[in-house]
């Protein structure tokens, strides 16, 4: 079966939506972080697919994806370290506990 571009984009959209949903509804900070990764990966997927299907002659999308993955890794690392800090302060990783500053 010859897969058309949309068969790749649909999972990407699903990943995006799932990521957003997870991000907004999860209570745990780590779970939120995982959801975020989903969104980032959906973007990466987009890049790769567009490159492969639309512009097969060039590699820009692929390279962009590589960079994006690296950046995502860095982001996760920093986020995790901050979450650890918060865990030390409040004793859990519940996102509901970090809403002291508001309005």
């Amino acid at each position, binding site marked *: 079966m010859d897969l058309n571009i949309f068969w790749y984009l649909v999972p990407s959209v699903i990943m995006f939506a799932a990521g957003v949903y997870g991000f907004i509804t999860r209570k745990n*900070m780590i779970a939120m972080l995982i959801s*975020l990764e989903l969104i980032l990966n959906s973007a990466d997927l987009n890049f790769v697919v567009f490159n492969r299907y639309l512009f097969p002659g060039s590699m820009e999308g692929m390279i*962009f994806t590589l960079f994006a993955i690296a950046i995502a890794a*860095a982001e996760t690392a*920093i986020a995790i370290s901050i979450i650890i800090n918060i865990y030390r302060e409040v004793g859990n990783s519940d996102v509901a506990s970090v809403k*002291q*500053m508001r309005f």
Partner: protein
Amino acid sequence: MDYSQFGAMLPELIILGLFLVVFLLDTFTKDGSAKRFLTPVTTVLFGLAAVAIWLIPSCGTEVFGGMYVDSAACKAIKAILCIGVFIVLLQSSEWVESDEVAIRKGEFYELLFVTLFGMFLMISARHFLLFVIGLESASLPLAAMVAFNKKHYQSHEAAFKYIITAVFSSAVLLVGLSFVYALSGGSLYFDDIRAAIAGSEMSGLLVVALAFVIAGIGFKLSLVPFHLWTADVYQGAPTAITSYLSVISKGSAAFAFFVIFVQAFGTVYSGLWEWMMYAVIILTITIGNLFAIRQKNMKRFMAFSSISQAGYIMLGVMTESALGLGSMMYYIFVYVVSNLAVFGVISAIENKTGKVGMDDYDGLHKSNPWLSFAMTLAMFSLAGIPPFAGFFSKFLIFTSVTASGSMPLYMLVLVALINTIISLYYYLLVVKAIWINPGEAKVEAFRSAFTERLALWLCVGGIVFFGLVPCIYDYCVNTAALL
């Protein structure tokens, strides 16, 4: 590969060099000995670097096959930001030397220089890959900086909110960019994108792409509705970081925004992103103002103030002209000195007394008349009152927006002008607290450190001087022509 092209990246190289110097000093000196000199050495070195960046001419060459451009305008905005960073360094030295932080001061400078390096890349980028790299290296270390006050819970909460939103927004940006990529004809060079979009038909994908890109960069600029992290982060972060975030980070992002939207998205389907920005600017100015009028914490207050200021800065984008860019750069300059003057006072008081509430400023003029004067001038400048620089920057940016003569832009300026009234209200609240509110001063008299005073003098000098003397504006407009 021609390595001589790195010579065109002199500002970045200087910052990188500084980073290395600080890193080496920090690593190979022992606590209590040579490390004592880290702060003054860094500050002086950065001062020299800033002078160098002002002085070196821009050669207008391209690097990395055109991904990086060293144009006069880029150099000008970098130079302006360098002034801001220098002032931030001066202001922060007291805090950096405090017991709690002193042990990690090397890290502070390293992180700061990395973010500055990222911002410079962002400014000069003419390709989305370089732009994203710059953006991320400008924003990720900031999260660590926001969390710098290890012992303050609020600092962590701020950092968490910052990093989580930052990652989310970069994800949205990447999604948006992936759509742009789909429409771009296979190249992420700004020029190529413009050419490709110009040749293609209007599509829904472009609309979504634009919306996501606006959202992604709007996060850095804290445009409404992508601004919600701002207040919490500004409040929780150490004051030095807050001031850095509010002026430098915002200034560089604003410039990059202009470059991207004028160069990459151009005016192909005229009015497409302009209308989006139209709405965003109105929302930004208005909502920022509405929130600001209720704030009692000075840092949080300044967060909302800087949100609405970002809206005014963004007016420059609407012009899509060299005049507009020049006015915007000038606005950024004035915003830098005015905002830093405010943060200078806030941090001076916070360092001495730990007080950041607006109530704590009641009767300040009785104990600290000079700080009061500086604060008053800064507030007037932010509110756009002549003869202070803020008036000129506002007037000039409004003038450049109305240049096209289109009625919607006039109305936009009208909305902005009406909002200046609201903003005047809350800026005057601070003035009122200082001068009018009855009672004895809640902050006792003190003499702030030399560096803090120097920073304040620089800011006040800028506020008073660079409105009446048009040299900076002329410089901005002249260089803006060479984007």
